[in-house]
């Protein structure tokens, strides 16, 4: 079973076509990077998968068309984190993480012991238990991103969609957050689709790479398929060089 089956997906905004009849399948149980140049349509694709914007063509999640899912059922299976999570003014970390239980208890349902336990586990898994009582807007960037990740974990969704989760973080926090997402995928059997700018991060942490260029599919494959000078040049329109580190893993730099 595919995680997502995308057929002839087209997204138009007035005067411009953002995605041109995209057709691809995304495998389950993997950490998938969505890469491409600015304006390549990677964030648009992610938002379509998260049902945030309408599109023509067909997209199926777990073999069911997106439009057939009820909003809360979809949120139980799939969690989405927007590119700039808002400030969550006046909210503690525990309250933020508890919002992840909304798809399960709805607007009126009881917040039971199971919910409390799930929230505690989610905070534990993302390492924010220590900050549970702190206000979200007093945390550092990396801590705040982990708190938001904990919210998606509390959603108990099998699939995470993350829109540039590391773009505002320094290098140490970038590694920390991506390592956490990788752990969440490989140890807990989740799938993740992540929009990334940094091609080396994508190659190092992700199992599968989808590259877009100008709204067209440019590449789909493993990190090894991506880290070829000719492929990178085709994606980014810039001559690239691939070096090999002492441990054998590749690093790409502009040539």
């Amino acid at each position, binding site marked *: 079973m595919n995680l997502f089956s995308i057929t002839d997906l087209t997204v138009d905004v007035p005067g411009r076509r953002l995605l041109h009849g995209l057709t691809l399948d995304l495998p389950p149980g993997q950490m998938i990077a969505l890469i491409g140049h600015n304006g390549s349509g990677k964030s648009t694709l992610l938002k379509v998968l998260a049902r945030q914007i309408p599109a023509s063509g067909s997209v199926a999640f777990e073999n069911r068309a997106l439009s057939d899912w009820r909003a809360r059922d979809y949120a139980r299976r799939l969690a989405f984190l*927007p590119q700039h*999570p*808002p400030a*969550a*003014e*006046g909210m503690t970390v525990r309250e933020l993480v508890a919002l*992840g239980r*909304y798809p399960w208890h709805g607007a009126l349902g009881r917040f039971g012991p199971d919910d409390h336990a799930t929230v505690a586990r989610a905070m534990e898994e993302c390492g924010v238990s220590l900050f549970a009582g702190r206000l979200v807007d007093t945390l550092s960037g990396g801590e705040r991103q982990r708190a938001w990740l904990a919210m998606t974990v509390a959603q108990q969704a099998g699939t995470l969609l993350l829109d540039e989760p590391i773009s505002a973080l320094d290098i140490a926090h970038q590694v920390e957050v991506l390592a956490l997402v990788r752990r969440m995928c490989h140890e807990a059997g989740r799938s993740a689709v992540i929009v990334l700018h940094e091609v080396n991060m994508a190659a190092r942490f992700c199992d599968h790479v989808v590259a877009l260029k100008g709204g067209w599919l440019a590449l789909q494959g493993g990190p090894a398929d991506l880290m070829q000078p000719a492929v990178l040049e085709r994606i980014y329109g810039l001559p690239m060089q691939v070096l090999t580190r002492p441990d054998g893993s590749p690093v790409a730099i502009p040539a």
Partner: protein
Amino acid sequence: MTARLLPLALLAAALWLWAALHLLPLAQWPAWPLDPARMDIPQILLGFGLMPRGIVALLAGAVLGLSGAILQVVLRNPVADPTTLGISAGAQLALVTATIMAPSLLEGGRWPVAMAGAGMAAGLVLLIGARRAFAPVTMVIAGMLAGMTAGAAATAMTLAQGEYLLSLVIWNGGSLVQQDWSGVRALAAVLAFGMVAAALLARPLRVLSLGIQGAQGLGVNVATVRLLAVGVAVILAAAVSAELGLIAFVGLAAPALARTLGAVSIPRLLTLSPLIGALILSVCDGLVLLTADRVGEMFPTGALTGLIGGPLLIWLLPRLRGSTPPGTERAEGPAPRRDHPAPLLIGLAVALVVTALVLVWIGRVPGGWAVLDAESFAAFLPMRLPRLIAACSAGAALAIAGAILQRLTANPLASPEVLGVSGGAAMGYAGVVYLAAAPTAVALTAGSMAGGAVALVLVAAFVSRRDMPAERVLLAGIAVSALASGVLSAAMAVGDTRSFQILAWLSGSSSAVTMPGALALAAVAATLWAGALTARRWLAVLPLGAGVAGGLGLPLRLARMALIALAGVATGAATVLVGPLSFVGLMAPHMARRLGLARPGDHVTGAALIGAGLMLAADFGARMAGFPYELPLGLFASLIGAPWLIWLMMRPQR
């Protein structure tokens, strides 16, 4: 593109000519130069009435169009104009104040007073805007609130002085009637000044359109250019205010029309806008002349332009660029948070009950204060209780509506006043007053409810578009409010007792409340509170934005519609009692938040208690301040609220 303006120009000319020829056949028109000694009455009416009037319409329209174009360019805000930024209302308040407090100030003419008022209003709004990087939505909300506040204060003074000030209301509407050529000369000089200033500012303004940092990088002194440009725009708008009164939305319409005709560059916009403004105002005045010929001059031209403004704003809204930098629409730094809010909430509730009891007990008598003994207490209770209950309920309902709207739109300036419901209710009320021969209280209530409901449907239709940012709701509400104020000023300009009845209602009064009415309002407030508590999880998620809310499976459209309906119904019900303006809906949620009530349930409950307390205090003040006369409740509340609002907006951000 100017060829497409030709029909408009021909229409304006035809309308004026029709009125002129109707007055006097061409053969009898007075010879130039005009000499009153050798003219008969119709010739004087034409030469010193209609002729200058036609030219004044052109000049004033051009001045307003230029003023609006400059403001829109310098603030990079397509809905900026002298009306939406509160400039015209500031001039009006200054004139009313001068008329009452210091008539001698007006000996030097209306101009200096109007300039001072307009300048102060513009300064206030710009100061607020400067703290938020001139974010367009916040600027318009601040301008509209400043305008409403000025309007409320002017209304208070008008009411306090009785009918003799009602002539000022006519001035408010912007009548173009002329008696000589002095207005033409004055406005021509202003327009010439404006054109020269605009020509000098055109290039710096074009650089400024790159944004602050870009312009600074190119060596432009951003603050000076902004100050000069806004100063010119204020002078232009204030001149029209002083000469003719409030002529709304020409400054908004002219640049908007210029843009749809393809005026993209700033010099083009600055030349085309005055032309279009002149034509718009001429056509409007021609239409007024046309109806005046049939039924007498019923309403001033400014009221007609106000009617155009509302639909125009609604049409412009989707074109407004939504990309304000994140955080700029926020009002202030993080508020404290209380981990155990229960004691505070209980304390607030106890304080409310105690205050209510005390206020029943004590009262003012001629010559001093008195505490009621048991016997008079029993006698006074049936009289005082309904209005206490009604005031508390109205305050609570407005406060809950405000809390809901602030959370829904994630904008701390959201309040029921700007939702448009109050404006709609006022229109409904005015409609009943004018259409029914002897309106009953039930008919008036039903009328205002219906008006509020129609406004609510308009706003809701707007919200139902999924891609519409929630903050635009506020702008839709402002558009409805603008439409309502246009209708109202047209109605008021008639200037008879019915106008006074509407004016009195606009300022709100609780004196006529009956016990069933008070209990009904209390039931509305209780229902609203229960509804808000039921929706508290939505209220927790919605401030985080559509992305997060959608990701969590929240039914976004349903939630928005339900919450807007809840807030709208509550506002409509409370408006019947306290009039369309009180600021309680803005103040109470803020106070609750500053007191550390952060969770949605606590926030809503605390806001309701504070709102009830505020309205109780306002009711007491309204009864006592002018004893033995009663001031209107809503007016008194807004006089408390306005300084709070200004203080709030002036607070430094973080």
